[in-house]
């Protein structure tokens, strides 16, 4: 029996196990929307902006490990997805985005609502397709999900011309066969053996875990490695949750706003075991001065990540989980070491650094400190929540003061640093986890970038909580202006203590709006919000002067850190660094 492209599209999604599509309609995708109208298997979540749809599908993917799906119309619908796609691309998140396209005979004619989205999205997708013939459609959909999920995951876009969705053919479901695409999953055993021997030999080792650990589902193996060898673990922003933040071997995050002890440990280590990371400049600081004395073992599924930014002594291309499984086995069976003895001096040293400069801030009774809000959220949820963030200081304070114990509990735009990510991502995560507490820790600037998704949350009865750390500023910008631009706050003041009234905005959308001005109100507001089974905005009016510390100025080595108490002295030093 012949069926239409639109029907093939839906049947293919069903076979891929898709339950939700995040989307927005328009002319060329109306045939698909019409079919969705009474489809029992797949529900479309109508967002209020295509960017929101893509971030929501990304939040769904990050929180579940399954591919997220978005569907938009041609032209502006398609171009509105670009930020969301680029966000997923930078963080290796599997999503499949379907964009409508003008009918094939009109492509290239500057037709109404035509945009070359395949061209536009080429550099920020893992792969993309323009479907030219309905006979190819089911194969392309199947391939797209496979490509998105396998190897180093990433977004795939499929451009669907209207006539293709209208034409008919038999449904087929061909096996995937891409001769030019064969990700390497098994690490080279010889390299792993060499790595094991280095681990046994060197005494000042640090593990640096990144998003790849989470993507490969390798947290258990990572923990085994760390516990068995007693090597401390630091994490990149994307790696938070891959290893328990409350574990006594955890050093927290490293890098620009990393902990003193993580950065010191990396810099003084003689062995850095980098797992599922890509050495972003926010992590390495000045590259020539990064971990200067360390041998580097680098495990990653993407060969291009290895030796891209830092020199590597033992490269291991493969899936983190599988490589760690082999490595652990070799370490347990062949390299029988008394790890405790070997590491003793080193762990004593690391503990000293911990004591020397723990993560702190100055609590106040008068004004709410943003870090205090994050701490309270952690305390009240006991870490049992899915946290999303926006971008800026809010993101860094969350990374520092919320202890992530489990993978897929922090959803944040690490690579692209997309303001406006957190709220729609929380919506996607909440949909996938209806009984979980999902909280977006937001900035007053970022939240306004996708605030329209309040409607999506409310209409779909998604009890997402948004905790706005309202410092009335583009706080991270303000921080840099204070430190590096002579306190000239050029266009970073948002006046968001007065405009808008976030609580009222929430109420206007049918959500609940709460506000806290004094430190004593923080806990009651959070408790109330967590009790309410509705979408809640919490507006925490926080100390606008607060800065994220420690801080490594851009381009400095990561042990050249600035601390809160040394603000004034630091300023001089900073100028010297610049």
């Amino acid at each position, binding site marked *: 029996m012949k069926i239409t492209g639109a029907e093939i599209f839906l049947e293919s999604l069903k076979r891929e196990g898709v339950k939700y599509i995040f989307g927005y309609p328009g002319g060329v995708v109306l045939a698909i929307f019409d079919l969705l109208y009474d489809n029992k298997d797949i529900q479309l979540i109508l967002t209020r902006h295509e960017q929101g749809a893509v971030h929501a599908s990304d939040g769904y993917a990050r929180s579940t490990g399954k591919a997220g799906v978005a569907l938009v119309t041609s032209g502006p619908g398609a171009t509105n997805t670009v930020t969301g796609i680029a966000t997923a691309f930078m963080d290796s998140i599997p999503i499949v985005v379907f964009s409508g396209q003008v009918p094939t005979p009109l492509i290239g004619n500057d037709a109404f609502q035509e945009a070359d989205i395949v*061209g536009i999205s080429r*550099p920020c997708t893992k792969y993309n397709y323009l479907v030219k013939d309905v006979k190819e459609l089911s194969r392309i959909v199947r391939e797209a999900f496979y490509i998105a999920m396998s190897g180093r995951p990433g977004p795939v876009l499929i451009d669907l011309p209207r006539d293709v969705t209208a034409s008919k053919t038999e449904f087929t479901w061909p096996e995937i066969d891409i001769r*030019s*695409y064969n990700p390497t999953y098994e690490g080279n055993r010889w390299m792993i053996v060499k790595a094991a021997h280095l681990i046994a030999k060197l005494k000042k080792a640090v593990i640096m875990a990144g998003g790849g650990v989470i993507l490969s589902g390798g947290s258990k193996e990572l923990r085994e490695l760390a516990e068995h060898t007693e090597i401390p673990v630091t994490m990149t922003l994307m790696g938070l949750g891959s290893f328990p933040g409350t574990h006594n071997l955890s050093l927290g995050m490293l890098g620009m706003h990393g902990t003193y002890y993580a950065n010191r440990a990396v810099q003084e280590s003689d062995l850095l075991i980098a797992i599922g990371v890509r050495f972003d400049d926010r992590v390495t600081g000045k590259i020539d001065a990064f971990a200067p004395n360390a041998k580097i073992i680098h495990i990653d599924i993407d*060969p*291009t990540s290895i*030796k891209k930014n830092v020199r590597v002594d033992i490269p291991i291309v493969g899936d983190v989980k599988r490589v760690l499984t082999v490595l652990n086995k070799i370490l347990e069976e062949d390299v029988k070491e008394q790890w405790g003895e070997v590491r003793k001096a080193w762990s004593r040293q690391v503990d000293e650094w911990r004591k020397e400069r723990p993560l702190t801030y100055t609590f106040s009774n008068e004004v709410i400190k943003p870090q205090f809000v994050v701490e309270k959220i952690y305390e009240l949820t006991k870490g049992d929540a899915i946290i999303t963030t926006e971008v800026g200081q809010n993101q860094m304070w969350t990374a520092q003061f919320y202890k992530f114990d489990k993978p897929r509990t922090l959803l944040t735009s690490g690579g692209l640093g997309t303001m406006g990510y957190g709220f729609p991502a929380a919506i996607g995560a909440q949909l996938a986890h209806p009984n979980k507490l999902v909280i977006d820790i937001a900035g007053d600037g970022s939240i306004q970038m996708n605030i329209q998704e309040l409607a999506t949350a409310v209409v779909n009865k998604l009890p997402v909580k948004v905790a706005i750390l309202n410092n009335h500023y583009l706080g991270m910008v303000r921080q840099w202006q204070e430190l590096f631009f002579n306190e000239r706050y050029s266009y970073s003041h948002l006046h968001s203590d007065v405009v808008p009234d976030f609580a009222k905005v929430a109420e206007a959308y049918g959500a609940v709006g709460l506000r806290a001005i004094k430190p004593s109100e923080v806990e009651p507001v959070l408790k109330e919000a967590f009790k309410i089974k509705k979408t809640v905005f919490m507006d925490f009016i926080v100390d606008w002067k607060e800065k994220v510390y420690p801080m490594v100025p851009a381009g400095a080595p990561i042990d050249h850190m600035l601390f809160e108490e040394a603000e004034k002295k630091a300023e001089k030093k900073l100028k010297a660094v610049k």
Partner: protein
Amino acid sequence: MRHTISLLVENKFGVLSRIAGLFSGRGYNIESLSVGETIDPQISIMTIVTSGDDQIIEQITKQLNKLIDVIKVVDMTEFDHVEREMVLIKVAPKQEEKAEVLRLAEIFRGRIVDSSQNTYTIEVTGDEKKIEAIIELLKPMGIKEFVRTGKIAIAREGVKK
């Protein structure tokens, strides 16, 4: 250092722009590029001449390999190989230099593929040095324009450097 990289790619639309985009997006430079069919019409072969230090060349080959439509990447520089390029040169020599132009063409085993009242168009094939040499020699005799194909390369059978 300069490298000649040979790529087998799927013969699909958009592949060239993926490869060009990779080079431009990452700031690598393409000195020449040529594309053509292979024995299998579904596969095209591209020859790219690029330059960079070892680390950059390693990244380029890895990044090319990572592209989904790329089937195989060979850095020809690692192999004994034959390289060829073709040039079409249009010269407009003075009357008294015409004979010299024809003589040079012959020395370089070039062919005159077109001639007019005032011009000759010469076709020359060879490696890069040869092409550059004939261009240099003809320059004083008034080259109007020339067009080069870019390099193609093929490995010599059975020898690895």
